[in-house]
C-alpha cells in the first residue's frame, strides 16, 4: 500500500533532525511492504482533499518560523479539512506551536497558527531544555512511555477540555507547570519532544502509520511487530537521562 505524507516546509522546519522521524516512518512502512511517498508542501502548494494520509511538520528557529508562519496559517482550512477526512498528523516543537491558534513572542507580537490543535503558545523568559519522559495512553488501557528531548522558550496552553499527548514523568512539558506534554486531537499529535522522537519511540511511529493506513483503507490495520531491540535500548537510556537530569524548576 502506498502512504502519502505531506511534509510541511521541510526546507525551513528541520532544526532538530526531523528527517530522523521521516526515516523511521519510511523504513518501518517498507519493512511491512508499504511505500511512503513524501511530498514537500511549501507556500501556496495546494492540498487537495483526500490525497495525503499523514502530515508532518518539524521545528525551526524563530527566524524560520517567522518566515513561514503566515503561509502555514493560510493552509489552515485545507489542513483542517484533510484531518476531518481522516488524515493523521505529527507536529514537533516549532511545528507543534504553529498548529495552534497563535504564538505570541516576547514583544507581544503574534504569529498566526494553522488552527489544527486546540492550544496557543506564549514565549517565556527561560528556555526549557532537557530530557523528557512521558506516559501516554493513545489507546485506552494501553499505557506507553515516550522519551525525548525538549528545547523551547514557548509555554503552550491547551484549551479547556483539550487532551494532552501525555503526562510528564520527568522534564518540563508544555509549560513547565501543568504536568502535561503535547496535545492529541483525534489523529493529530503535537509535541515538543524531538531527539528525534520516533527512533526511540517506535510504537508511536507504528501508531501514526496505522492511522495513515486507516485513512487510505478505512480500517486501522494490525501492523506486524518488528525486531526493536536497539530501539528499546535507546529508549531506556533516554528515559534514564530524563529521570536523572530532566529539566525542572
Amino acid at each position, binding site marked *: 500500500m502506498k502512504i502519502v505524507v505531506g511534509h510541511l516546509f521541510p526546507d525551513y522546519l528541520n532544526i532538530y533532525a526531523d528527517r530522523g522521524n521521516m526515516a523511521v516512518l519510511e*523504513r518501518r512502512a517498507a519493512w511491512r511492504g508499504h511505500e511512503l511517498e513524501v511530498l514537500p508542501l511549501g507556500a501556496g502548494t495546494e492540498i487537495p482533499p483526500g490525497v495525503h494520509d499523514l502530515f508532518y511538520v518539524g521545528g525551526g528557529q524563530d527566524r524560520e518560523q517567522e518566515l513561514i508562519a503566515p503561509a502555514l496559517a493560510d493552509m489552515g482550512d485545507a489542513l483542517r479539512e484533510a484531518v476531518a477526512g481522516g488524515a493523521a498528523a505529527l507536529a514537533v516543537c516549532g511545528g507543534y506551536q504553529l498548529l495552534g491558534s497563535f504564538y505570541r513572542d516576547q514583544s507581544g507580537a503574534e504569529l498566526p497558527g494553522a488552527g489544527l490543535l486546540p492550544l496557543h503558545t506564549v514565549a517565556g523568559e527561560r528556555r526549557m531544555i532537557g530530557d523528557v519522559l512521558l506516559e501516554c495512553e493513545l489507546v485506552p488501557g494501553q499505557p506507553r512511555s515516550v522519551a525525548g528531548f525538549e528545547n523551547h522558550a514557548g509555554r503552550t496552553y491547551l484549551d479547556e477540555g483539550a487532551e494532552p499527548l501525555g503526562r510528564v514523568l520527568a522534564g518540563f512539558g508544555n509549560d513547565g507547570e501543568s504536568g502535561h506534554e503535547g496535545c492529541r486531537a483525534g489523529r493529530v499529535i503535537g509535541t515538543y519532544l524531538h531527539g528525534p522522537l520516533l527512533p*526511540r519511540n517506535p510504537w508511536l511511529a507504528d501508531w501514526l502509520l496505522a492511522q495513515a493506513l486507516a485513512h487510505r483503507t478505512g480500517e486501522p490495520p494490525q501492523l506486524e511487530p518488528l525486531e526493536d531491540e536497539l530501539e528499546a535500548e535507546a529508549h531506556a537510556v533516554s528515559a534514564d537521562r530524563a529521570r536523572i537530569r530532566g529539566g525542572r524548576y
Partner: protein
Amino acid sequence: MRLPLPLSAEIVFARAAASLSRVVGAGGGTTVPGKLLWKLDPGAVDRLAARLPRGSALISATNGKTTTAAMAARILAPSVRLAHNRSGANLVSGVASTLLAARDAELGLFEVDEAALPEVARRLRPRAVLLGNLFRDQLDRYGELELLAARWREMVRELASDASLVVNGDDPQLGDLARKRPRSTVFGLDDPRHASDELQHAADSKWCIRCGTPYVYAAAYIGHLGDYRCPACGHTRPTLDVLAREIELKGLESASFQLVTPEGTRSIELGVPGLYNVYNALAAASLARALDASLDAIQAGLQGFSAAFGRFERIAIGERSLLVLLIKNPAGANEVVRTLLAGTQPRLLLVALNDEIADGRDVSWIWDVDFEPLLGGLERLVASGERAAELALRFKYAGLPTDAIEVIPSLEEALDRGLELTPAHGELVALPTYTAMLGLRDLVARRGFVKPYWEAAA
C-alpha cells in the same frame, strides 16, 4: 619606566593549583587554575591580558577553532612568544589559565567558545578577532543560531576602533559584519570546482539576512558557506581580500591551494586533508596577516603544520594504527565523512557518541549528519559511547543491517573490539564526539601509545 604588575598572591596560588591537579591525576589541570583565579578575582584576567606587550587575538567559529588557532600559532611562533590555549580550554577560565601559565608571552592567541566570545572580548580588548563560521551546534547549550549571531554583532560593535576584524565572507552572517568596519579582512574560497551539487541538509543561514528570500549560490562549499546572492534584494558575498584558488584535495593525506592576498600569491601545500582545512588555513593566514606576519612566514607556518589535538590524529598502536577524526556537529561531521571517503571507503568504523555538556546533551544532531555515503563499503560498525544505542539506530535507519552493528557503550571495550577486527598493519578509523575523543586518547595514553594531552600540548 613602570615595571609590570607584581605577581599577586592569587596568581601564585592559582598556578600552584595547576601543578596539584596534575599530581593528583585529576587531568591536565588546564582550567583548574583559571577557575580558581576567576573565583578569587574576576578582573585579574583583564590585568593579565593587559600585560601582553603585543596584545591578544581571538578566534571563534562553530568549526575549526582549534585547528585554525594551531595553524596561526605555527605561523607566528617563530617570531613572537605566544600565550596559546592549544588544548582547547576555550571558556574564560581556560583563557585565564593560559595567561597564568605563559609568564613571558608577548602575544595572546586564543580560541574562544562561541558563547563566551563577547565576554572574553570585553575583558581582553583584543587587537584582532577572527570569526570563522556559524553552524547549528549544541542548540541545548548555545540556543538558536540567530541569538549567537546577534551577540557577535554586538561584540563587533564594541571592539576598539583600531582592532582588526577578520571574517569568513562565505558565511552570510559573518561577511556582513565586515561591511561597516574599515579595518577588516574578508576571506573565502574561489574555486567552484569544489562546490557541492546542492545545499547540504545541514546548511543553516540559507535565507537572506536582510529580506528572508532564499539565497542563490554560484557555489556552495560547506553547508551554507559559499558564493551567495539574494535574487530579491541583491545582498551578496562581499569582495574577498584573501582567497584560495586552484584547490587540490589529495584524499586523506593532504591538500594544496593558491593563497591569493593583496601582497601576492603563494602556493600552499597542507599536510592535512579536506576542504575544511583549506578554510582553516585561509582563516589562519588572514589572521596572521592582520597581525603583521609576512607571506613567507604564513607559507612556512602552514606547510609545517601537521594536526591539531584529536582533530585528525594517527596513533600507532603496535602494528595497527588508529585514526581519530573528531565529530561534533552536522556541518563538521559531514566534512569529516567527505574527507574520509576521499581517501578510503572504510569496511570497519568505530563511532562513539557521548552526551556530556561538551558533546551536547541533545544527541539529535547525529540525524542531521549525512552518514549515508559511508554505508557503501561498511561491513561492521562498532557503536560506542554513552548513547551507543541511539547511534546504532542512526545507522540502522540509514539502511545498515542490524547484524553489522555491535553496540558496545564502554569505550575501552569498543576500542579493543575495533582493534581486534582490524587486520595487522591496518588502520582503525574512529569518529568520536568531544569527550569520547578525550576518553579514547586517554586510553591509548595509558597504554603508552601517546602522551597525555597536557604534555603533548606543552
